[in-house]
């Protein structure tokens, strides 16, 4: 299936990124790029700086040094709101859903930036808000259909299994119709079957919507199976970058994962 997908030009270019918290260097001089329509994985041992990297991309952290070029334009003064506006959506390592709200409503929150009519009209369900509500609902339903979660449409998220909650979180990110989707350990804590399902959804998102995906994942099997290129971090430094096969053959990567005597 993959060979028919066309990988486009570089959409996101990270140049010499350094980020430190006080005396701790979280990221040191890291450069890599993400091409349009590809699945890019970031791997590395615990504390390697993977989540920090993701947080830099969607504007939660501002790096002390380095440039981020998004769609050919250097990015300055990035914050989360602007990142979302510019088409970057994400999921979190620890699920961050509204537990008391239904699956439907949770995914609907992902549409926030797409809603045109104003708050008052919506509250009154009046005029253009009515038509819009239907339109948004249809989009949400398409995502529910895509992720095969019809049976829990109206169930409060807090009552769902962990695997289903992860799927709902992916749904909410998809609702924003992102250009780049950042997934922070989408398969952590899942069983084999749930991992297979999630992998299939990630591939389908990439294939059907052409969404560029940057993901962090610990399960090496999954990473090697679904990603086009992999970047490897260790102690805030980049130690490898390339196709899964290249990365697997990289001696630095092997050392970082298996340990080496100093």
């Amino acid at each position: 299936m993959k060979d028919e997908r066309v990988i486009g030009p570089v959409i996101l270019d990270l140049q010499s990124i350094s980020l430190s918290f006080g005396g701790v260097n979280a990221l040191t001089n890291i450069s890599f790029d993400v091409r349009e329509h590809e699945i890019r994985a970031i791997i590395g041992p615990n504390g390697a700086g993977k989540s920090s990297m993701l947080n830099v991309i969607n504007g939660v952290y501002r790096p002390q040094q380095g440039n981020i070029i998004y769609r050919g334009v250097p990015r300055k003064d990035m914050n989360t709101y602007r990142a979302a506006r510019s088409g970057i959506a994400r999921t979190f390592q620890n699920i961050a859903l509204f537990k008391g709200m239904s699956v439907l409503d949770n995914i609907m929150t992902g549409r926030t930036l797409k809603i045109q009519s104003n708050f008052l009209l919506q509250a009154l369900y009046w005029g253009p808000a009515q038509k819009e509500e239907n339109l948004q609902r249809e989009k949400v339903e398409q995502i529910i259909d895509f992720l095969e979660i019809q049976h829990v449409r109206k169930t409060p998220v807090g009552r769902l299994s962990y695997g289903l909650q992860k799927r709902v979180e992916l749904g909410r990110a998809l609702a924003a119709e992102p250009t780049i989707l950042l997934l922070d350990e989408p398969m952590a804590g899942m069983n084999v079957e749930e991992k297979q399902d999630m992998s299939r959804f990630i591939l389908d998102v990439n294939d059907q919507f052409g969404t560029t995906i940057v993901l962090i994942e610990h399960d090496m099997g999954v990473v090697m199976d679904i990603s086009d290129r992999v970047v490897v971090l260790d102690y805030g430094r980049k130690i490898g970058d390339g196709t899964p096969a290249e990365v697997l053959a990289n001696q630095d990567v092997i050392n970082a994962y298996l340990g080496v005597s100093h």
Partner: protein
Amino acid sequence: MGLPGGQTLPALLLEHARIRPNMPAFREKHLGIWQTWNWLETNSEVRALACGLADQGFRRGMNLAIIGDNRPSLYWAMAAVQCLGGIPVPLYQDAPAADMAYVLENADIHFVIVEDQEQVDKVLELKSLYPGIRHVTFDDTRGMRHYHQPELISYQSLQELGRRFDAAHPEFFMREVNACQADDIAIMLYTSGTTGKPKGVCQTHAALTGRARVVAEMEALNETDVVLSYLPMAWVGDNVISYVQALVVGFTVNCPESSETVMTDLREIGPTYYFAPPRVFENILTSVMLRMEDASPTKRRMFDYFMQVAKQVGSRLLDGKQVNWSYRFLYWLGDLIIYAPLRNVMGLSRIRIAYTAGEAIGPDLLTFYRSLGVNLKQLYGSTETCAFVCIQPNGMVRPDSVGLPIPGVELMISDEGEVLVKSPGLFKQYYRNPEETRAAFTESGWFRTGDAGYFDADGHLKIIDRARDVGKLSNGHLFAPKYVENKLKFSTYIKEAVVFGNRRSYCTAIINIDSEATGNWAERRGIAYSGYTDLAAHPDVYELIAACIAQTNQTLSEDATLTHLQIHRMLILHKQFDPDDEELTRTRKIRREFVENKYEQLITAMFSDKTSQYIETQVKFEDGRQSLVCADIKIADLKVFAATGETR
């Protein structure tokens, strides 16, 4: 309004499009909203599809396989094939590849219509086993973008081809429909077969529409009735009710959104006419009971009290019998605060007629629903008899019989105790299997049902068991395993039971626990377990199940002819019975002989004085992988009661 008079299914479809063009025919939930097709739209969908098939070279006398969940598009496929004088062959969508290949080859099938990518993959994989597949049409285009095999075409493209074909040959469709004769074969249903290879049962238009019409008149079904079709399309029950009877009467067929949403859809649709095998009613009851156990004590007490009232008078009220006014008042009150909300939760608020068939239903289960005011009745029939042989007439429902023969059906009990049938709804033949066809009839032309039964004093038919399964204990007493199994299965905690004892001195049982109910029970007691196998082996669970069986033993002891069927020893199996492991048929019936062979070690151990037995079993996963599971299974001795129940 009387029922339309068409003799063939295509004729009926056209008739509905003429007399009630704007009435709803099919509904399906799409993106969370129920979409409706009226009879006129249904007619044009079918016509386009039929012409598309003709354009691809499908001709009179050919067979076409249909694989998928219940979807309007697949029911239309059935109609389209029949319009062309072909024979649709619906298959069980979860059947393994080898079984499917056998049927496709046996029926000489070149055309297949499937629901989605999953089925396309399966069919393409089958090509290595059976290369005859030439045309595969798929309904759901999702995930199909990268499939370019020459035999594939989407449902919509095929209809598009059909519309063009229809424009070029405007007289073609009607000519084909008019050429359909009432005694042409309308459909071929492969029997799931508790033994041997599946056999293709050929039913004619006349048999199907005739039987459907008689029952519709008996039950006063009309075009305002509503059904939910969620049972496999390859099963005669779904086929006769959701397709044939829908065409005969003109009522609305609703297809659920997915197999996981059936309970929600049931509530939203609120069918007036409902058909389900006993296990579905069991599942509904189990889920209600589970939720009641978590309710507050006040609610539980209220529930228990009013359920007691319902048990005493509910069925009598439903049958229109005499009940004194104080009970009438109590039942009215109970209906207000318990029964009506409960029926609503179960999606059974609007039920006029509900049938259960396919297996014997536990008497207590039937009584439970009837006492709540749900007109649940037993139906007796098989694929070979168009599903309708006996029905319990309104007001004369008894828990232990399957009712009176419906008009046109003659019944006889053979000397061996087997039920024999003559009916206008009898099948024409097993497809390309004259030997089996001959063997299915007696010399004087009666169809052998294979069920052992007898008539009670009022002429109601009672089914004891499959004739092959009925045997004798070594002390000469009757051994009817099914009867006991059904009693056992009424316990919330027991999902499946297989009883052994033929030619033995006592009876034993292999038990499958209900993982949900038992799991819930364990959680409330703070019993930790890691999965089914762990739970099944837990000593407390053994005690729980032993107590359930002891209760059954006690009721058995009260009946002189059944007291010998009490279970002396039992074990809880480490795995659930599964159709993928061939222990169950696709319709979830126990394949007794297979189970008996597979677990011979365990059964022998139960008839010895061993207290445990080690066993290794192969487990097959849905994707075809296999693995080995081993366990040391404990065997428990049970409490047995003296014949008159005096140990009480």
